[in-house]
Structure formats: C-alpha cells, structure tokens
C-alpha cells in the first residue's frame, strides 16, 4: 500500500467528517444526496482501518470564526472542504512573510531610480541658464556688448525651456503604478544619453569658454541655445521610444488562467516582456471574473475519486517499484467502467436547475422589495405623510424581505464569501440613491464580476511573479510563453505575432454591374 493512498483516504475521510459535523447546522438544505457523503463511503472499497483525525485543523476554526463575524444574518456556510482549509492557513503565513521581506527591498530600488532621474533632470534644466549667467558673473567687464540679437536669443531660450519643462512634466511626472523586476531599458538608455550629452557640453564649456574667458558673448548664448534645442530633440526621442513605439499593435497575446481556463486576447505593440506582463495584469483586474476557489472543489473531488478506489498489492515479493505501481493504477483506472460522466452530467443539470429556481425567487423578492420604496419629490418633502428616510435607512428597511432569497442564491452559486451584509446594504442604498431598478441592483450578484469590483481582501491575487525563460527586458517575439504566478493560480501568456497582411486592390467600374433575367417559360401550343 502506498502512502499516497493513505493520505488520500484520510483527506477524503476528513471531508466526510466535515460534511457530517456541519450538517447539523444546515437547515432547509435539500441536498440530502450530496456527493460528499457518498464520497466517504465510495472511496473505501478495500479493507483499511480509517482513523478519525486527532484534532480539527487550524483553518477550520479560523474560517468558522470569520463566518461568525460575517454571516450573522443567516445560516453558517460550509463550502470549504478539508484540503483547501489546510492550504489556506499555510498560504496565509507564506503571504505575510513574503509581504514583510519584499516591501523594504523594492521600495529602495524604486526611490533610488526616481532620485537619480530627478537630480539629473534638475541639472539638465539649470545647465543652459548656468551657461548664460556664468560669463556675466565671472568676467562681465570683458564681454563684448551684444544687444538685440542676444535679447532675442534670451527670449527663445526662455520659451524653449518653458516648453521643455511642460513637456517633461506631462510625460514623466506620473505616479509609478507598478514595481517591475528589472529596470526599463529605454529609460535607462535615455538617462545615460542625457547624462553623456550634458557632460560633454559642460566639458566643452569648461575648457573652451571658462578657461579661456571667451569674450564673444553672442557665441556663448548661441551655444546655450543649441543645448536647449538638442534637449528638445532628446525629449522628442523619449516620446517616440517610450510612448509611441508600442502603440502600433504587433502581437496578439492569449492569457489563460490556470485554474478554470478562462481566457482573453489582447493586442500589444513592441514591448519588453515585463511591460507586456504589466499590461496583461492591468487588464486582468478588469476583464477576468474574480477567482473563486469555491468553484473548483467539484473538479478536485472528482479527481480524488478517480484514483481513490484502487489499491496496489505487491504479490511478487518485496520491492518498491513505484513507477510500475502508479502505471498499473493508471491503467486499471482507465479500464474501470465508471459512470462518473453520467454523474457529472446529472449533477450539472441539477445545479443549473437549482440556480435558476433560486434566481427566479430572488428576482421576485427584490422586485417586490423595491416597490415599497418611493422617492419623495422636493415639494412633497415638506408635507410628507410618514417619516422621511435617507437612502441608508431605506435600504435597511427593505433589506430583510430580500435577505433570505439573496443569501440562498449566493450560497448556491458559491459567491457568499464575496458579499458581506454591510457591502450589500451599501450597494442597496447606492442603487436607491441613483434610481436604479431591481435588475440593476441585482446585476452585481447574478454574475461574477471582475476582480476590481470586490473587496481587496477577497482578491487572492495581489503579489505577482513573472516566470519567463527569456530575459524579462527582452522584447516580445512570436511564440514566447511566460507565466504570471500568484499564490493561488497563475496566468499563462502566449504571444503570437499578428500575421503580415497582403492587401491588394481591385477596381470595380460602377457601370459594370449588369444583370440578365433567367427565364424558364412554358407555352402551350
């Protein structure tokens, strides 16, 4: 008997127990033939002594306490089985430690980069002004007088610097929205270029002008003007490299979530892998439905049942041929004529029917609840018949009539973790304030929405890791695959190049549209 099978049976045994212990709390549940109870009995086909677990798992208590705070408006919920409670408690610890150690390191790197760029920018901005002012300060008396021309040049320098300032503010002064693993190649390149450029100008200035105390002031001012012009061109280069180059779509990217296969396609231009990952993640929060671990338990239990009923006995003698055993188990499982497909079909049909029925009840309850509320117009507000309520009180007044139907529906679709009573009340008062219909109120609950819609605690996806075989600063190519991993799931990203389109033209003369009648007449003679 392999130890893996023992662990498997213990786990399924625990879910069997969890099902029983919490059954007492369930009221009005019509799922007496729940597969969980069948699970426990069917998985034990051979003779094994199944020991009950020594103590309840840590996660179990934690979730129960959490539910006690959240779910005081109804029955307790029992959606999580033993295995996922295990993993949640361990992952919580991992998450906390990771948060602590990462937050310090990344912030330092980010602020260092920002500081360098700010200092360089300031230096660059002040350089032309310094070029113009230094001769005036140091050897004013020796300078040739330079009248109108210089004044014109002063004005042009001033305005160009102003334009440069506004352009830099518009382009570069933005909140950094992400921490990325490696430095942006183009940004670093531009900073180096600017530094070298300004350094060379200072070098020239220092040697040829300051040392020799050049008296041709007009030439000096023109030198400063040429610097500002070149800076404007570098700014143009920065726009093209950082902003414009990736606008034209070159690649189509397919993003698939590993847990449930939800996929989306996006169009991207020439980006590095890390920037493409950023774009994908920004769109993930908006486009993908929220990750719900409660929806995955069904397939996990099916997977457990597939291998559960088989045990390997080694009759030929001692010898632990593990791969041979597992291969034998796989072959036997494939040969076994199980009707799990049948079960899946009927279970899904049953679930559909149940969801539809609960949804109908919910819609009716909400519609009825909304009819009790009427908005008072301004002139009616003086002479109100009953007491006037603000939206929050109105929401609290009509909430009890729909609470039960809503809670049952959320539990059937396994969304109850995502909506607390407080959030529902808030949403209800929001809808009442904005004159929304019952259907608009329900839109949030009937379909799972994108991750952004929910509370940050329920996201399951805040820290991401980019896993890639290529360097993350290299550009996108056709066929690249990289993975964005967070603790509970991962997004697999597949890059494909948009095909080269050959478009040719065909000219049709408008007069060339001619038609004939297709006749088939019959004449009697």
């Amino acid at each position, binding site marked *: 008997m392999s130890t893996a099978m023992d662990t498997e049976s213990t786990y399924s045994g625990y879910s069997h127990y969890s099902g029983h212990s919490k059954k007492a709390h369930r009221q009005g549940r019509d799922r007496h033939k729940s597969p969980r109870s069948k699970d426990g009995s069917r998985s034990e086909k051979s003779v094994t002594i199944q020991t009950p677990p020594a103590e309840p798992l840590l996660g179990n208590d934690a979730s129960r306490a959490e539910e006690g705070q959240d779910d005081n408006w109804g029955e307790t919920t029992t959606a999580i089985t033993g295995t996922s409670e295990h993993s949640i408690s361990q992952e919580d610890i991992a998450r906390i430690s990771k948060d602590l150690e990462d937050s310090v390191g990344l912030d330092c790197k980010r602020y260092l980069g920002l500081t360098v760029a700010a200092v360089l920018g300031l230096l660059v901005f002040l350089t032309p002004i310094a070029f113009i002012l230094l001769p005036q300060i140091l050897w004013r008396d020796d300078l040739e007088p330079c009248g109108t021309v210089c004044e014109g040049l002063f004005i042009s320098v001033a305005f160009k610097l102003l334009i440069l300032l506004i352009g830099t503010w518009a382009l570069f002064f933005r909140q950094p929205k992400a921490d990325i693993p490696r430095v942006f190649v183009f940004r670093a390149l531009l900073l180096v270029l600017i530094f070298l450029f300004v350094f060379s100008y200072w070098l020239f200035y220092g040697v040829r002008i300051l040392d020799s105390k050049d008296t041709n002031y007009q030439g000096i001012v023109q030198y400063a003007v040429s610097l500002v012009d070149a800076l404007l061109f570098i700014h143009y280069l920065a726009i093209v490299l950082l902003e414009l180059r990736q606008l034209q779509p070159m690649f189509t990217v397919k993003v698939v979530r590993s847990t449930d296969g939800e996929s989306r396609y996006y169009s991207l231009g020439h980006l590095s892998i890390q920037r493409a990952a950023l774009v994908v993640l920004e769109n993930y929060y908006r486009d993908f439905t929220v990750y719900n671990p409660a929806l995955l338990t069904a397939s996990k239990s099916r997977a457990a049942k597939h291998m559960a009923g088989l045990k390997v006995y080694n009759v030929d003698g001692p010898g632990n041929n593990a791969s041979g055993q597992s291969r034998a188990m796989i072959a036997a499982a494939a040969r076994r004529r199980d009707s799990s497909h049948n079960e899946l079909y009927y279970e899904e049909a049953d679930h559909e029917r149940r969801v539809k029925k609960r949804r109908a009840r919910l819609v009716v309850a909400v519609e009825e609840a909304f009819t009790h509320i009427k908005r008072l117009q301004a002139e009616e507000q003086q002479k109100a018949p009953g007491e006037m309520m603000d939206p929050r009180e109105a929401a609290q007044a009509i909430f009890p009539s729909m609470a039960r139907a809503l809670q049952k529906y959320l539990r059937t679709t396994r969304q109850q973790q995502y909506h607390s009573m407080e959030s529902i009340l808030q949403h209800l008062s929001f809808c009442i304030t904005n004159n929304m219909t019952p259907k608009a109120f329900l839109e949030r609950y009937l379909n799972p929405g994108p991750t952004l819609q929910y509370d940050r605690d329920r996201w399951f996806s805040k820290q991401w890791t980019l896993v890639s075989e290529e360097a993350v600063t290299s550009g996108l190519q056709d066929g690249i695959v990289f993975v964005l991993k967070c603790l509970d799931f991962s997004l697999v990203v597949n890059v494909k190049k948009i095909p080269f389109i050959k478009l040719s033209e065909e000219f049709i003369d408008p007069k060339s549209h001619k038609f004939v009648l*297709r006749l088939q007449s019959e004449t*009697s*003679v």
Partner: protein
Amino acid sequence: PVITVFNCFISVSFQQRIEIHKLRQGDNLILGFSIGGGIDQDPTQNPFSEDKTDKGIYVTRVTEGGPAEVAGLQIGDKIMQVNGWDMTMVTHDQARKRLTKRNEEVVRLLVTRQSLQKAVQQSMMS
C-alpha cells in the same frame, strides 16, 4: 422464347417520328401540349433534360386526350424537328411560332426520348 434480363443502367435514347393532327377549337388550332426551353431560356431549370446545358425544346406537359397524346407524344420528349425545320437552336418564341402556323393542319415532329424503362421492358419481352 428466351427471356433475357437486361441489368444495365445505360439510358437509351432513340428518335421517333410523331404526326399530330391539330384540333380546331374555335378560332385556334391547338396541338395539346406545352413546350419549354430555347436558346434564350435558362437551361439549368429544365427538369427533363439530361444535360443541363441543353437549350433545346422540350415537351413539358401533354393534355389528356389531346391530339398530341393521341399521336404518342410524351412528356419529357425533346423536339428535334418540326416539319423539317430544326428546333435545336431556336428561341422559345420561334419554336412556338413554328408549331402554331395557321395554315398547317398537320405537324410532323422528330422527337428524342430517353426512356430506360421502355428499353428494359422491350428487351425482356423479346
């Protein structure tokens, strides 16, 4: 008599000469059938032709008890000649005119007929 059974599915077409005596109805001389086809018509809509590019004149209907039926004309026959005039390359209207000449009481048609059944029956009876 030896009964030979023909098992072949080749359709045989053979020509026949049919003489129709026109019937006077009021002011008109009628023949008792309808024609379809012609070089100005759409040959693909002809249900009787074997080759759907055949633009010949076909008999589309034969009235019961009319002179054509009496003379032995059948539905689906292709009219090749009328009184010596060729009918394989004529328009629908020209065909109609050739058949309904007022001064002719008798028209002699050369028709082509495809009939598999008749060939099998005839060979079986021999």
